[in-house]
């Protein structure tokens, strides 16, 4: 298989639970060596998508492909998976558990032992190999969970909220591991509600809402999308000057420092002139909203068919 073609593709996936449409023609892809952040409110369909990729759920229609071929039962063994609901045998020892899972993925006993040791060392839980999982702190259980997703040296990573519940040190270790895997050409898909983190480590981000991909692209692309915004700092000036410019809306105002939303047909040079008329301009810049703001904007906008948004209030952003 050519290295360059290890893309994981989701092609028009649909899934219904009775009357509830969980996934509606969802399509996106994660290229080889790319870290893809999957964000959306609770219930938007992230977990369902991941479970379909792992064959734990079956899609009503659509196809998941890896390296150009539909993902089959055999190729699924090449995926490293971290389920949203952490799943380990509570009364099984860490080491035995990792070896068992590695062997289920087809590794020999010797290799399974070697990988279990290597990954627990890398993730800082090697000293707990002979302890039962239930005796570990939640953070350490999380590290073991990640080790179990990595222990069979997967060619694809699908991680459902791998960062939730981790301390800052563990977050760093986890980010490095993901970057390493991506550096080796592994497509990495993970979901998260920690948008600052997503913004920092992801190559691309997909925002899903009600089972549809509503925004997808690099962080820069996403931040550049949406209505144009400008920051204008005119110390001491009354914000009223901005209202006078047609097609301009004041989003925020702090002591003369304004955030303006500009309609598409507004010439920003006209805005600058108006600002200069109001007083000395200390700052005038194009503003790229952080992902958090964009996310809030995308998920809380009324649905296309006018229904009130069903989950936006539950978002843990």
């Amino acid at each position, binding site marked *: 298989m050519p290295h360059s073609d290890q893309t994981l593709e989701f092609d028009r996936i649909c899934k219904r639970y009775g009357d509830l449409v969980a996934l509606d023609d969802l399509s996106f892809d994660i290229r080889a060596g790319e870290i893809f952040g999957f964000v959306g409110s609770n219930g938007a369909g992230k977990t369902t998508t991941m479970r379909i990729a792992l064959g734990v759920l079956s899609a009503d229609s659509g196809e998941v492909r890896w390296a150009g071929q539909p993902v089959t039962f055999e190729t699924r063994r090449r995926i490293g*998976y971290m*389920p949203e609901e952490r*799943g380990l*045998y509570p009364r099984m020892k860490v080491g035995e558990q990792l070896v*068992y899972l590695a062997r289920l993925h087809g590794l020999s006993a010797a290799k399974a032992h070697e990988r279990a040791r290597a990954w627990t060392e890398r993730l800082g839980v090697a000293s707990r190999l002979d302890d039962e999982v239930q005796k570990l702190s939640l953070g350490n259980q999380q590290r073991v969970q990640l080790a179990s997703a990595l222990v*069979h040296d997967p060619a694809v990573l699908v991680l459902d909220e791998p960062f939730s519940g981790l301390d800052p040190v563990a977050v760093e270790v986890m980010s490095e591991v993901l970057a390493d895997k991506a550096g080796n050409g592994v497509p990495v898909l993970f979901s998260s509600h920690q948008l600052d983190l997503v913004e920092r480590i992801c190559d691309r981000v997909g925002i899903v809402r009600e089972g549809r991909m509503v925004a997808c692209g690099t962080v820069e692309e996403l931040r550049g999308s949406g209505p144009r915004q400008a920051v204008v700092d005119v110390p001491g000036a009354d914000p009223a000057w901005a209202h006078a410019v047609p097609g301009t809306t004041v989003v925020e105002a702090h002591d003369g420092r304004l955030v303006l939303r500009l309609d598409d047909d507004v010439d920003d040079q006209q805005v600058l002139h108006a600002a200069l008329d109001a007083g000395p301009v200390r700052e005038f810049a194009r503003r790229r909203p952080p992902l958090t703001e964009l996310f809030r904007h995308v998920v809380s906008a009324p649905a296309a068919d006018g229904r009130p948004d069903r989950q936006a209030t539950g978002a843990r952003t």
Partner: protein
Amino acid sequence: MSATTTEDVRLSSPEAIRLVAGREVTTRLRSKAYRIVTVVLVVLVVAFAVVMKLVAGLGGEQRIGYVDAAADLAPRVEAVATSLGKDTVTVRVHDEGAGRRMVADGRLDALVVGMHGPRLQVVVDERLDDGLRTALTSGAGQSVLDQQITSLGGNPADVASRVAQAGVQVSALNPPPTYDPQRLAVGSVAGILVYLALIGTGQSVAMGVVEEKSSRVVELLLATVRPWQLMAGKVVGIGLVGLLQVLVVGIAGVVAGQLTGSLDISISTSVGIVAWLVVWFVLGFTLYALVFAGLGALVSRQEDVGGVIAPVTMLLVVGYVIGISVLPSSPGNTVVGLLSLVPVFSPTMMPMRLAMGAVPLWQTLLSLALAVGAIPFLVVLSGRLYRNGVVRTGTRVGLREALRAG
């Protein structure tokens, strides 16, 4: 650690099942509960053998003392007692006073003092054993008869031998099978053992399925093995561990019975009983474990396991209770005989009947055929329940819904 590694990650079905079963076996053999239960069962079955021996010793031998004057009665009494199934030991007592003391302190069960006219004088501590009374009455009657024959000029020994030859010759058209009381007891023990083993292992299977569901580890497992492989591995693993338990306890019981001498059954019969016990445990376990695995997959919490498997557990209990309450007293009961052919009841009833003996060959074969024949049907049914239930967490999955889907 490159994404382009081309190592072989195929896992054959036997290999997958072996891995899953291996985990079950190691986890369970290590568990304290399993070891304790096995030890307790071994202790109970050995204790049962010892108690049987003690009870037999207490009830069996009757020590009868004869004062010199009554000594010639001893052979007759002994002969009649033996024909009634009573073991007697004859003790000669020279002096009546000493004999009475021996009765009082329990060294003798009865003291025969001698004939007083037509009456035989007997001293006992509290009351005379019924069998012994019959033997002594007959002895007294013989004694009187001998005197009369002698007084009429006849030879009592000659008459006695003629009388002994007289009798009834019966030709039964349909002789009922005879049952050895010891084998009835062994059959009951076999029944209890197989019942406990089936209940225990069946629940383990259901709990094991739910453990994987409630800890969500099943989601990781199902990304690598197919549902039927996971279910088969679990059933095989727990079955092997249960089988080991049945074998250990069964063999311990037979060995204890032989060593203490409480079991007066040939080695080959004992081996046969244990072999049937194993065969029916394996069949019964397969039948019930499959259903328990399928039902266990319908719930997500350990607390709900009992409820969902209760109807099936009831079937197991009903079969056992009917068997254990009817068979020891009436091993040839027709209704129980017929019920014991039905796969639901055969795993508990057949090992009891087979241990008690006298099971017609056709019934043995038919019960085996029906049980084996039910397995493929249950594999399909339980496989479907399991596959549809195992990834659905939250509320209990309806039976009809689980059977319909997929």
